[in-house]
C-alpha cells in the first residue's frame, strides 16, 4: 500500500500547509496523550493502593478471636478464649487446600513497642513470634545471616532476626551483628539475621523496627505458652481463600464450642477480598480512563475528519487537475485516506511519546521524593500502547473516509471549474 513515491506525494501535500497540518494533528496528539496518561495514573493509583496492602500473599486471610456473641451449650456470650497450636494443626489436617497456616504473637499488641537493649543502646521495637513458613506468606529479604528455622522452633532457641531499623538503632556502622545479643524485656536473644520486607508497605517504620523470634521460644519466654494471637492462612493458588472461610471457622467453632452461627466470634480479615474489591474499583476506573480518554481522542478524530473535509474542499480543483492528468478515483481516495492515516498515526505516536515522557518524569520525581501514599510507579503496558495504536489506525481511516469519498464524488469537469 505504501511506496516511497506515495510517501513523497503525501508528505508534500501535508507540508503544503504546515500550520494547518499542525493544528489538525494537535487534536489527536492531545487525545491520545490524555488517554495514555489517564490509564497510567489509574495504574499508578492502583499500584499504590495495592502496595499499601503490604507484602502479604494475596490469597491469604487472618483469623483471631473477638469473643462469642451467641450463648452456646450453656456457655455465655462475650466469652473470650484463645487460639492455640492445636488449632493450627487441626486446620492444616482438615483443610488440605490450605498451603500455610502460621501462628503469630506479638508483644504488647499491634504496633506495641517493647524495650530492647544492647549494651548501652536502647530502643522501642515491635517483637513478634513466628514460624519459618511466614517467610513464604510475607516475603522478606534476608540481608545477613538467616531466618528462623524448624530447629529454632523445636529446640526453643533464644534467637531472633532483626529488621533494618533495629540494626540502625542499636548498632554502629561496621559492628559485627550476627552472633551478637539483644535483651528483649530482660531476656537475651542472639541475633541470627537481618531482614527487610521484600515489598514496601508504605509505613516503613513498622517494617524495619521489628524483631522476629521463634514462636515456641516466644511462648515460653514471655509466658504465652501455646496461645496463638492470630493465624495467617494461605491457600494453594488454585483455591480462593474466600471460599475456605466457612470451613476454617467451622474447625475453630467446633474446637472451641462456639455456636455454628456465631461467625462474629472470630475476627476474619480476607486479603483476597480486599484485592478483589480494589481490583473491581480499578477496573471501573480503568474503564472510565478508557471512556474519557476515548471521548477526548474522538473529538480529535472528528477534528481531523472536519479539517480533512475542508482540505478536500480546498483541494477540489487540485483533485480535478489530478484526475484530468490520469488519477483514478481509487488513487485520489487512497491519497486522502493515507494523508489522514499518516496524520493520525504520526500525531498519535508523538502523543504517546509525550505521555511516555510525562510518565517517565513522574516516576523520576517519585524516585527522588521516595514513596508517597496510594500512588506508585504510574505506567502503561505495551498492550495499552498497541490498543492505542489500533485505535489510531481505525480512527485515521474513519477520519479520512468521508472526505475521501467526497473528493471523488464530483465530476472532473466540475472540480476543475472550482476556483
Amino acid at each position, binding site marked *: 500500500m505504501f511506496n516511497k513515491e506515495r510517501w513523497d506525494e503525501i508528505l508534500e501535500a501535508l*507540508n503544503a500547509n504546515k500550520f494547518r497540518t499542525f493544528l489538525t494533528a494537535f487534536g489527536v496528539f492531545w487525545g491520545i496523550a490524555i488517554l495514555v496518561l489517564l490509564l497510567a495514573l489509574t495504574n499508578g493509583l492502583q499500584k499504590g493502593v495495592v502496595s499499601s496492602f503490604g507484602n502479604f500473599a494475596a490469597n491469604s486471610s487472618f483469623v483471631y478471636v473477638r469473643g462469642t456473641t451467641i450463648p452456646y451449650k450453656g456457655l455465655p456470650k462475650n466469652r473470650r478464649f484463645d487460639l492455640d497450636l492445636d488449632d493450627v494443626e487441626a486446620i492444616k489436617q482438615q483443610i488440605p487446600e490450605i498451603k500455610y497456616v502460621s501462628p503469630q504473637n506479638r508483644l504488647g499488641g499491634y504496633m506495641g513497642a517493647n524495650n530492647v537493649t544492647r549494651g548501652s543502646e536502647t530502643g522501642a521495637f515491635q517483637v513478634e513470634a513466628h514460624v519459618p513458613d511466614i517467610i513464604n506468606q510475607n516475603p522478606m529479604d534476608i540481608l545477613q545471616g538467616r531466618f528462623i528455622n524448624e530447629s529454632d522452633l523445636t529446640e526453643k532457641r533464644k534467637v531472633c532476626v532483626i529488621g533494618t531499623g533495629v540494626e540502625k538503632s542499636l548498632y554502629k556502622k561496621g559492628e559485627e551483628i550476627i552472633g551478637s545479643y539483644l535483651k528483649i524485656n530482660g531476656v537475651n536473644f542472639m541475633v541470627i539475621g537481618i531482614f527487610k520486607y521484600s515489598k514496601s508497605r508504605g509505613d516503613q517504620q513498622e517494617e524495619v523496627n521489628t524483631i522476629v523470634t521463634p514462636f515456641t521460644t516466644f511462648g515460653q519466654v514471655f509466658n504465652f505458652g501455646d496461645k496463638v494471637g492470630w493465624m495467617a492462612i494461605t491457600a494453594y493458588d488454585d483455591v480462593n481463600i474466600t471460599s475456605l472461610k466457612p470451613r476454617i471457622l467451622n474447625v475453630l467453632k467446633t474446637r472451641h464450642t462456639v455456636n455454628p452461627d456465631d461467625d462474629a466470634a472470630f475476627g476474619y480479615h480476607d486479603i483476597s477480598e480486599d484485592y478483589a474489591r480494589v481490583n473491581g474499583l480499578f477496573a471501573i476506573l480503568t474503564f472510565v480512563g478508557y471512556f474519557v480518554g476515548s471521548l477526548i481522542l474522538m473529538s480529535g478524530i472528528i477534528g481531523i475528519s472536519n479539517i480533512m473535509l475542508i482540505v478536500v474542499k480546498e483541494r477540489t480543483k487540485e483533485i480535478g487537475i489530478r484526475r484530468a492528468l490520469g488519477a483514478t478515483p481509487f488513487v485520489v481516495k487512497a491519497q486522502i485516506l493515507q494523508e489522514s492515516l499518516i496524520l493520525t498515526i504520526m500525531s498519535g505516536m508523538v502523543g504517546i511519546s509525550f505521555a511516555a515522557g510525562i510518565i517517565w518524569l513522574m516516576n523520576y520525581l517519585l524516585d527522588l521524593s521516595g514513596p508517597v501514599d496510594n500512588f506508585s510507579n504510574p505506567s502503561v503496558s505495551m498492550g495499552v500502547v498497541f490498543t492505542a495504536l489500533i485505535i489510531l489506525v481505525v480512527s485515521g481511516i474513519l477520519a479520512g473516509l468521508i472526505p475521501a469519498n467526497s473528493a471523488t464524488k464530483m465530476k472532473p469537469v466540475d472540480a476543475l471549474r472550482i476556483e
Partner: protein
Amino acid sequence: MIQIKDLHKSYHMGSNSLHVLKGINFNVKEGEMVSIMGSSGSGKSTLLNIIGILDEADSGSYVLDGVPIKNLNEKVAANYRNKFLGFIFQSFNLINYKSALDNVAMPLYYQGIKRKERIEKAEYYLEKVGLTPWLNHLPSELSGGQKQRVAIARALASNPKVLLADEPTGALDSKTSQEVMELIQGINDEGKTILMVTHEHDIAQMTKRIVHLKDGVIIDDSPVQQVRASVYV
C-alpha cells in the same frame, strides 16, 4: 483520430434544462490542428470537455483513436485521459506547491513510471519549452507565459495522441500569446493532433482549421485559408 456523430449534451438545473450541444458532427484527422471558436455559451468548452473525457455526452457517438468513448467507468476514463490526452487550460491548472519539474512529471506518476525516469522526461519537455533554468521553481515564482509553458510541457509529458487546449492564451498578453501559440504550432508540426478552444480570431488563425459553433450547432467548419478569405471578401 476523433470522430464525433450527432453529439448532444444538456445541463439540468432544477426543472430547467439547457441544451448546450445539439447534434455535433465532426472529425479530426491525426496531425491536424483545429480551433473551435464561438461566442460565450456556444458550447465550445463543453465539446472540448467531452472530447477530453472530463464530461460525458447525453447521446451521440465519440470515437477516440478507434476506441468508442461511451459509458466508461471512472477508472477506464482516467486511464484514457492519461494515455490519449494532454490538457492545456486557460488558468494553467498547475499544482501550486509542486515545482515546475514535479508538475510536468505528474501524468507520468499516474502511469506508474519510476521517479528517475519521470524526472528525466520532465526535464526533457521543460527544456523543449525553454524552461530549463526554472525547473525547480514553484508556479508562484513564474510568469503567466512560463506557467503556460509548464502546462504545455506537462500536457506533452505522457506523449498523448491528442493535445486539448482550452483558451491557452486567454490569460496571457498578446506577445506571450504569440510565443505560446508558436510553441503549440511547433508541437503540431512534429505531428501531434491539437484541438483548441478559443474566442480570439487571430489565435484561431494560427491553426489549420476552424470550427465555428453557435448555440450548440456547428455553423462553419473550414480550413483557415478559406476562413481568412471569407473574412476579407
